[in-house]
């Protein structure tokens, strides 16, 4: 049995969060995007400061891919404004394209090209291109430069897309579920490369994923996309601090949910009543447990738990 409560989460402007840069690499205002009658993005506002890793979370069909493609100008928007690296993103173009890397969700481009030819083709367009990195990654990720892209597996294509995206040493790296098709070794190797990239100053990464463990490893700020809007963007540590799970236990079980400030979601399991709370007061919880004749246990939910509860 599960009981839901309305989410009393307010939009937080990440620019105002402590430790963030003043000039955002991305600013989105009132972005709307529909496919036919289905409105995927509904007046979405978002701002991403420079030098951060942003993990974009959302359920299947929430619009993560659409949002990322709209940000890069790869999908026309219905209304609103997107500003990328300080300039309006009316269409992909200009010098800033040298500073942007993108890994699409599925890499189905240029199947007739060989890996080496594709990378040579792409490298020719960029002012910066880390040939040593490309050689190293092709070798360690076992990508055959002579193979045609159409003959690569989905995982290999994903690796190639990652190599292609990070080789120009972009200042902004946008990744759409980059590790979905990767094996655990490749996922770890990718995360290592990503963290290495992030150690350089001024680098920003936005990536959507369902593998919350990767976001925890990267210490990412979490942005939650739900109902066509970014519900919040917060550092992971802050999320952990603010959200707690209180487990009340009593032998006779639970027929109703007690009222308590900051309650986001409640569910029962036998003698346990689990409450997901935002900014709870420990004293209030203790008092509640005593009044209900229950024992109290406080837990810190994992990011995955939070995602399941909030998304």
């Amino acid at each position, binding site marked *: 049995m599960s009981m839901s409560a309305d989410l009393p989460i307010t939009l937080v402007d990440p620019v105002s969060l402590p430790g963030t840069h003043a000039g955002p690499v991305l600013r989105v205002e009132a972005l709307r995007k529909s*496919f036919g009658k289905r409105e995927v993005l509904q007046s979405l506002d978002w701002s991403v400061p420079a030098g951060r890793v942003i993990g974009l979370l959302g359920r299947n069909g929430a619009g993560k891919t659409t949002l990322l*493609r709209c940000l*890069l*100008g*790869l*999908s*026309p928007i219905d209304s609103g404004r997107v500003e990328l690296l300080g300039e309006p993103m009316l*269409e*992909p*173009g200009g*010098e800033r*394209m*040298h500073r*942007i890397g*993108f890994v*699409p969700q599925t890499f*189905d*481009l*240029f*199947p*007739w*090209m060989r890996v080496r*030819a594709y990378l*040579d*083709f*792409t490298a*020719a*367009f*960029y*002012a910066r291109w880390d040939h040593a990195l490309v050689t190293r990654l092709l070798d360690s990720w076992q990508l055959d430069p002579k193979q*045609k*892209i*159409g*003959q690569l597996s989905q995982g290999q294509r994903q690796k190639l897309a990652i190599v292609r995206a990070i080789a120009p040493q972009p200042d902004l790296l946008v990744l759409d579920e980059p590790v979905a098709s990767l094996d655990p070794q490749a996922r770890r190797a990718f995360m290592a490369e990503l963290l290495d990239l992030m150690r350089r100053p001024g680098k920003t990464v936005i990536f959507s994923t369902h593998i919350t463990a990767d976001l925890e490893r990267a210490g990412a700020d979490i942005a939650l996309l739900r109902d066509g809007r970014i519900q919040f963007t917060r550092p992971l540590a802050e999320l952990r601090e603010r959200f707690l799970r209180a487990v009340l236990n009593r032998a006779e079980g639970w027929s109703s949910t007690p009222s308590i400030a900051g309650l986001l979601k409640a569910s029962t399991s036998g003698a346990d009543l689990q409450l997901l709370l935002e900014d709870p007061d420990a004293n209030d919880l203790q008092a509640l447990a005593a009044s209900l004749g229950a024992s109290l246990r406080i837990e810190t939910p994992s990011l995955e738990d939070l995602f399941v509860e909030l998304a």
Partner: protein
Amino acid sequence: MRAVWQLWLQLWKRMPVLVVLAILMWLGGLIFIVMNPYHYRGSVFVGVALSAFASWFWHIGQGQALRGLCRPESFLLPDFQRRLAWLGAISVLQWVILPSLLAALFAPTHGILIAAALLFVAAMGLATGCGRRVGLLIWVVFIAAGWMPQLAGQIVKVALISPWTAPLLILATVLLLRMTLLPLLHIDDREVEPSPLENANLGRTATVDGTPQPRGAIGKRIAGLFDYVAQHAMELALRRYRERPTAPHKLMLVRRLLLPHDNPQAIALRLLLVAGMVAIYFFVIMHRQHFNAAVVGAYAILLTMTRFPQLGRGMLRMRPNLADLYLTLAPRTHAEYQKMLVDALLILVPISVLTALAYTLLGSVLVHAAEPGRMLLTAAIVASSASLVALAVHLIGPEGSFGRAAINLVVLLGSMAMYWGGYWLIGAIGYAIGGITLAVVTISFGGGVWYAAQREYQRRTPCFDAPLV
């Protein structure tokens, strides 16, 4: 310039044969202009014509290559559009300015006109290669010229001396390029991929590399209508299967899944559309000359048989999806599953015969054929055997594009030749004896090929691997 060089190389890498032929023709044209072997101004124009043809050929390839390159993700490449513009400038230099300058040296009177014409030809090739229907306008010009050849000759004479011709050609080129390049450089949401086995006559199947064909508003409406009809047919088949889950109803469901646009309503709609287009074509050229009924009938057969090459390609692309069908059907043996596919696809034979008859009937009415019965009888017999053979070779034929192209050519030409031969035979020895003879020879051949092919197909293990590029 490295990026421009890479862009220029793409055509060489993708279509080396076309590139070599076009370059050889272009060089031949230039040599013809320069050498001027007969010291006659006309040979300069022959050289220019050769260059123009090479340019048209090259730009059709370039258009196809650009369609593959201009995906939304490509626009993230820095200065992608500017580099494309450079590629265009190099093309103009190679295919327009150089031949025009040489021609101007040897035939100075028409230099600007030659340059404008070469520019127009290049733009026309690009439009055709990019899949824009405006590229088909060239055929309207040919049809009109064939309709009224004397008037066309007079127009050409006037155009050659008129100072307005070159500016008008340049204006037409600008319009053509605008119509071609704007959709190519416009970023739009990707359309939903159609079924690989969808009927090719809709003109919305993806090209070999998976690039979707660009469609206009009318095309989208027609496709939507076909999708609606396909959905309705699928729902009907489902309802019937739920009511009575028999083997024939199950087979019908598989057919609706595999061949979404081969249900009665969609076939009727398709015939209507093709009939409309053919009627317009005949209306335009009917004053031109008398038609040979055998040619019209053979054309109807050709039109019918174009369904099968697309079926062969579609079955390859469909393979990963067929794994799901296999699991859903849960056959006892591989052979049972293969037989189910064979039985489902066999419906294409009567559909093809019906289509051939409809096209032939339409053709015979439009050209006022003297012996429509003879045309229809020949079409029915030839379409039956030819579609059996075509279906057979696409079930078990080669997977490579070259092998398939060769087989398609043989089947198409063979079918048309069979029609001509059959038409002559029935005319020579009468409807009864001629018809029976033709039917015995061709249908026994087609049936034999089909029987052997479907046996071989059932013997094979189903393959669900995606085709390699």
